[in-house]
């Protein structure tokens, strides 16, 4: 779809430079607002080179005997986002124009618009819309194919308009359109298939590399330590302090069984020093016997005992977990 210099008049070429220049300026501004923009620059450079290199590979189109190649706009925006993807595509198009005669210096503005603008901005809009409720392979497939077809159709339409406005062909608008759109429908479909297969592979292997996916992972799976502790503390108060009030006063399963056999929930202890000693220790240490304050039936005692019980249990589990973690680390160091 690269337009040569001969296909555009200076006026059309200049106008397209202005349009692409505005999009590039806006992209740079938005890119600078991103937190890790310096880091992104290296990724943009290498991804641009990647797109360029993979354009050299032919992909067999199943059942046709022919082959196609990648254009890269939709792929770049799915990884880098619209702004970084657009700027990378400008770099790729400039190299193609200077080194490989794909396009021209005057037509560069038009080529950037036709291939990079639609591919990255419209492609990313489609991607964002489809992925708004989460990502899946099916959604990646729809987004890749739809994005590639639509953006290539838009690009081909723009080529038609720009060429006709430049007045270099005698072809009527409708005939030119008929010549351009169907072939780019097929090209777009192949491009979509290649893009989807690459993106699905990345989704399986390294989903965090996909655009808009990182934030989702952060939100879904990663909670900060502070937030985790706060949530646990709230739950502790709600369960221990509130729900414990609703605790049944009926005996639990074991007590119920014992009651059925002996007529009492507690077994009579034998006259044995060990039992007596342990009972005494328990009476001394348990500051909330039967889940309430000593010598009182107040419900506040039940609540407080619930909270304290939960707290002690959590502390015990966290401590146990830490001990296991330290032990594992030590074992790992020894093994290494």
């Amino acid at each position: 779809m690269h337009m040569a210099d001969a296909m555009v008049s200076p006026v059309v070429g200049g106008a397209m430079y202005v349009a692409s220049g505005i999009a590039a300026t806006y992209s740079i501004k938005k890119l600078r607002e991103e937190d890790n923009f310096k880091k992104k620059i290296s990724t943009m450079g290498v991804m641009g080179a990647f797109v360029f290199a993979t354009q050299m590979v032919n992909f067999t189109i199943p059942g046709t005997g022919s082959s196609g190649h990648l254009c890269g706009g939709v792929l770049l925006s799915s990884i880098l986002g619209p702004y970084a993807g657009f700027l990378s595509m400008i770099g790729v198009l400039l190299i193609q124009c200077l080194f490989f005669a794909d396009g021209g210096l005057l037509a560069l503005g038009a080529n950037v618009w036709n291939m990079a603008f639609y591919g990255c901005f419209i492609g990313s809009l489609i991607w964002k819309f489809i992925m708004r409720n989460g990502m899946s392979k099916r959604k990646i497939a729809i987004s890749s194919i739809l994005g590639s077809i639509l953006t290539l159709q838009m690009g081909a339409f723009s080529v038609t308009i720009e060429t006709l406005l430049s007045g270099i062909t005698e072809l009527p608008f409708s005939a030119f359109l008929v010549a351009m759109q169907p072939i780019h429908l097929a090209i777009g479909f192949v491009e979509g298939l290649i893009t989807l297969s690459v993106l699905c592979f990345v989704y399986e292997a390294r989903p965090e590399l996909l655009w808009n996916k990182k934030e989702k992972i952060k939100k879904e799976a990663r909670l900060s330590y502070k937030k985790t502790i706060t949530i646990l503390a709230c739950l502790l108060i709600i369960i221990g302090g509130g729900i414990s009030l609703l605790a049944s006063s009926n005996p639990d399963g074991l007590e119920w069984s014992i009651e059925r056999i002996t007529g009492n929930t507690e077994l009579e202890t034998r006259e044995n020093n060990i039992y007596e000693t342990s009972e005494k220790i328990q009476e001394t240490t348990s500051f909330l016997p039967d889940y309430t304050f000593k010598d009182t039936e107040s419900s506040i005692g039940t609540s407080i005992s619930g909270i304290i019980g939960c707290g002690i249990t959590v502390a015990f589990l966290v401590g146990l977990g830490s001990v296991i973690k330290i032990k594992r680390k030590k074992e790992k160091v020894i093994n290494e």
Partner: protein
Amino acid sequence: MNKIEDAIYQVHYIDNNSNNNNILNKIHPLVKLIISVIYILFLTSINKYNLTITLAMSIYLIVVSIIGDLSIKNCIKRLKIVLFFLIIIGIANPILDRQVVTFIGIIPITTGMISALTLILKGIFAIISSYFLIVTTGVENICYALKKLHIPNILITIFMLIYRYIIVLLKEVQKIWIAYSLRAPKQKGIHFKAWGSMIGSLMIRSIDKAEVIYQAMELRVFSPDNFFMKNQKIDRTSIIYFMAGLLLLLIIRFIPIFDLIGNVFVH
């Protein structure tokens, strides 16, 4: 496979040539860029039926090739892609625009034929001029010229990074392609079942490579807003080249030299 080899060769060839020690290579990159852009603007602004002026624009290319000792042999391969597209666009002109202008023998020459020929010539000349620019200037000097034209540093950095890593990635693709061809001989392209895994794994490797590059850039206190480029002064030779180039372009674009020469012989 040939495409990849060609691309690697082209990049190396342009890199080597831009380091040659001839007059044209020593001209200030900004001057060469401006002259090339003016040439393309003049060329594309020619009326589609004005074949003689279009042909006259080749004088500039001949002069540059003599000064810079440049051959267009290497450029011919580049023309194939553009010629194909231009012929498709221009082929309708002789069919739809059939007003006869003159006859060569018994063959009628129509305005459609002239406009199609002009279109093809413009395409060829524009490509040759861009080729002469890059082959005598090199990417780093082009970037320097772009910096002087106040193109944002981010764009220049990305452009330079892409250029630097093209060879690395092309060689990686080449390796992958050789390995694949050995396992799947006689296959025209990569089978669709291998599309994702082959290109996807290359992409993941590329992104990991970018991480290492970023760390190296950080260690060298990289900043996209302030990167170093050796300052080049516009010397006397460059000014003369600019003046002479501009004058030549004005003459061949606005004075119908070929018509005047033809008239001398006809009268």
